[in-house]
């Protein structure tokens, strides 16, 4: 047995390799498979066409989230195409005996929120879902990444996936975060430094004091956006914060099973002396509240800064200009004071209880700006319940906001929650691509604090002035 030091990534990956194909990918066993209504129907159709069945239905969990309304969920879904997708998920899961938390189920919510909050996501697992933000689950020390529909079909039929082994990268952030700086700012800062493709081909481990001090909700926000720097996934070594979060959750191991799991989880960390293909080290002191000004998540700056003047040439220059042109912004302009029409808080990035606590901390005692339409969308019914129980709903209502029902909502605008063309949105979601939040919509990504500051002032505002 080899005693050479290993990375956390290597420990988890190696434990799941059923077979390594020479000059080809590894066949990887998948412990947890999440599915939703949008990327699974064609996979189920594929099973039928090939005459295959689901190998381990108990390892797959379904929830409806991408294409669900966030108001009047008790009524039939109005859009016939959306209703058809939801029905297909219900039929397919029933046929193969797969757990399904559909619309109206008290456990329903965004797949990357409900997995962890119900103890389905555990350290050391391999986790996949037909959704790129599956990287969220890496916060627990799992290898978690998004897959395409052909791969969903592979996992359903064989519980395995074929993947080339990615390279490894460690991103350390040391020191202590400044006032008003949230996990979202940390990850937007990292992406702005690495660019939207800076970690393509890599699996990232986030390390250092900042992540050690971070809550599970915060770690999930960071790992969620690993894909936005191109990484296949991001992970954080599990520790006492992780174990305390998991303990007692519905599907978490109990009793003897817990003791056994806990002993194994203690081994899940990068050994001293293990090497990475690439390393970055950042200082927490350099990070301020962030906001994006362009059309990919790498185009972010500190909120007090001016839009950079491009030093690119050729197609890089024209892509940069295209991006600013779409946003209606110019080089060297400040972001502070830019008008805001919409504010969206929610999504698998920032739809957890801590995010609403942060939002409420600024909104409390203030009023929603008249020019702003705000969509406040919890990540799950459990989060919705917490918002009510903690009195956050009262604070929101008092300030002129209302709460919607759980779902992916305006993050990808598949349902009716679309930002109108030309309008500006400060959004706590993960992507500011052209048209992502609706055709012609202009998105500025930010933390829940920046979103709250925009919601009460009606313009891009430094939240530190309101804390």
């Amino acid at each position: 047995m080899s005693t050479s030091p290993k990375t956390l990534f290597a420990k988890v990956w190696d434990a799941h390799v059923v077979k390594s194909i020479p000059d080809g990918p590894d066949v990887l066993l998948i412990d947890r498979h999440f599915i939703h209504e949008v990327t699974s129907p064609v996979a189920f159709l594929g099973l039928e066409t090939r005459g295959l069945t689901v190998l381990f239905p108990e390892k797959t969990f379904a929830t409806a989230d991408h294409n669900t309304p966030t108001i009047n969920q008790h009524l039939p879904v109005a859009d016939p195409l959306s209703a058809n997708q939801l029905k297909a998920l219900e039929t397919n899961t029933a046929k193969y005996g797969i757990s399904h938390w559909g619309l109206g189920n008290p456990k329903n919510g965004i797949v990357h929120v409900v997995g962890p909050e119900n103890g389905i996501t555990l350290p050391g697992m391999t986790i996949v879902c037909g959704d790129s933000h599956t990287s969220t689950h890496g916060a627990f020390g799992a290898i978690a990444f998004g897959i395409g529909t052909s791969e969903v079909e592979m996992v359903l039929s064989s519980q395995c996936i074929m993947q080339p082994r990615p390279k490894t990268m460690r991103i350390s952030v040391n020191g202590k975060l400044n006032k008003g700086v949230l996990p979202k700012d940390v990850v937007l800062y990292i992406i702005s430094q690495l660019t939207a493709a800076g970690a393509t081909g890599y699996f990232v481990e986030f390390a250092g004091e900042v992540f050690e001090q971070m809550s599970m909700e915060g770690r999930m926000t960071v790992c969620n956006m690993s894909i936005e720097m191109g990484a296949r996934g991001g992970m954080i070594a599990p520790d006492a914060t992780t174990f305390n979060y998991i303990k007692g959750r519905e599907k978490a191991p109990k009793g003897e099973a817990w003791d056994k799991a806990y002993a194994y989880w203690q081994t899940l960390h990068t050994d001293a002396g293990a090497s990475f293909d690439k390393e970055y080290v950042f200082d927490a002191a350099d990070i301020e509240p962030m906001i994006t000004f362009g059309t990919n998540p790498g185009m972010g700056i500190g909120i007090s800064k001016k839009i950079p003047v491009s030093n690119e040439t050729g197609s890089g220059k024209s892509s940069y200009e295209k991006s600013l042109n779409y946003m209606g912004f110019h080089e060297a302009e400040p972001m502070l004071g830019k008008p805001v029409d919409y504010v969206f808080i929610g999504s698998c990035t920032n739809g957890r209880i801590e995010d609403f606590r942060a939002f409420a901390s600024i909104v409390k005692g203030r009023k929603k700006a008249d020019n702003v339409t705000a969509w406040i969308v919890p990540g799950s019914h459990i989060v919705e319940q917490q918002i009510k129980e903690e009195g956050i709903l009262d604070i929101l209502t008092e300030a002129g906001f209302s709460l919607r029902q759980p779902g992916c909502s305006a993050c990808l605008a598949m349902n009716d929650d679309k930002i109108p063309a030309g309008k500006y949105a400060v959004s706590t979601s993960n992507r500011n691509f052209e048209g992502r939040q609706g055709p012609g919509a202009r998105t500025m990504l930010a933390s829940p604090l920046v979103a709250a500051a925009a919601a009460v002032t009606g313009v891009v505002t430094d939240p530190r002035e309101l804390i």
Partner: protein
Amino acid sequence: MAYDNFTILRSSAVPMPIENVDTDQIIPARFLKATERKGFGDNLFRDWRYNSDNTPKADFVLNNPIYTGKILVAGKNFGSGSSREHAAWAIYDYGFRCVVSSFFADIFKNNSLNIGILPVQISAEFLDKIFKAIEADPKTEIEVNLPEQSITILATGEKESFDINGYKKHNLMNGFDDIDYLQAMKEEIKAFAANSPY
């Protein structure tokens, strides 16, 4: 056979010298509501290709009849963002069999290979040469030779090789896919899974 096999493709190409083309541009989320894989090509690059009243945007490359062919040539970091395989389906359904760029996003690359589209990653310099060759003659032919792992601008003979792992190359050349492979090793998988703690 899951898709038509791929060996040597000779075709004119459609140039898209834009960087960071994400999958939301390739196929916007509102067109992901189907439960079957058909018709996605109609909405390929929907919001770049059509105005909000569904009339074609004259300045978009797919609406310019000068540019045709089975090869799409794009700027670096093509296919970033969402894991939606619908993006690859839309490209395939529109009629492309090969996408050439200096850099691809991981998930898009996997999805493409899984459905029979060949992603060809070349140097930034060679990509620039292809863009210039198409600019000089929109009908210029490119040859993508999978057995040889090479891409050639036929008019000038300029050539570069590209990487692909042996397993995927064999699959593409024969029209096999991973599901066939995994089905064949099901007993091995079951035995492995029996020892899994999860």
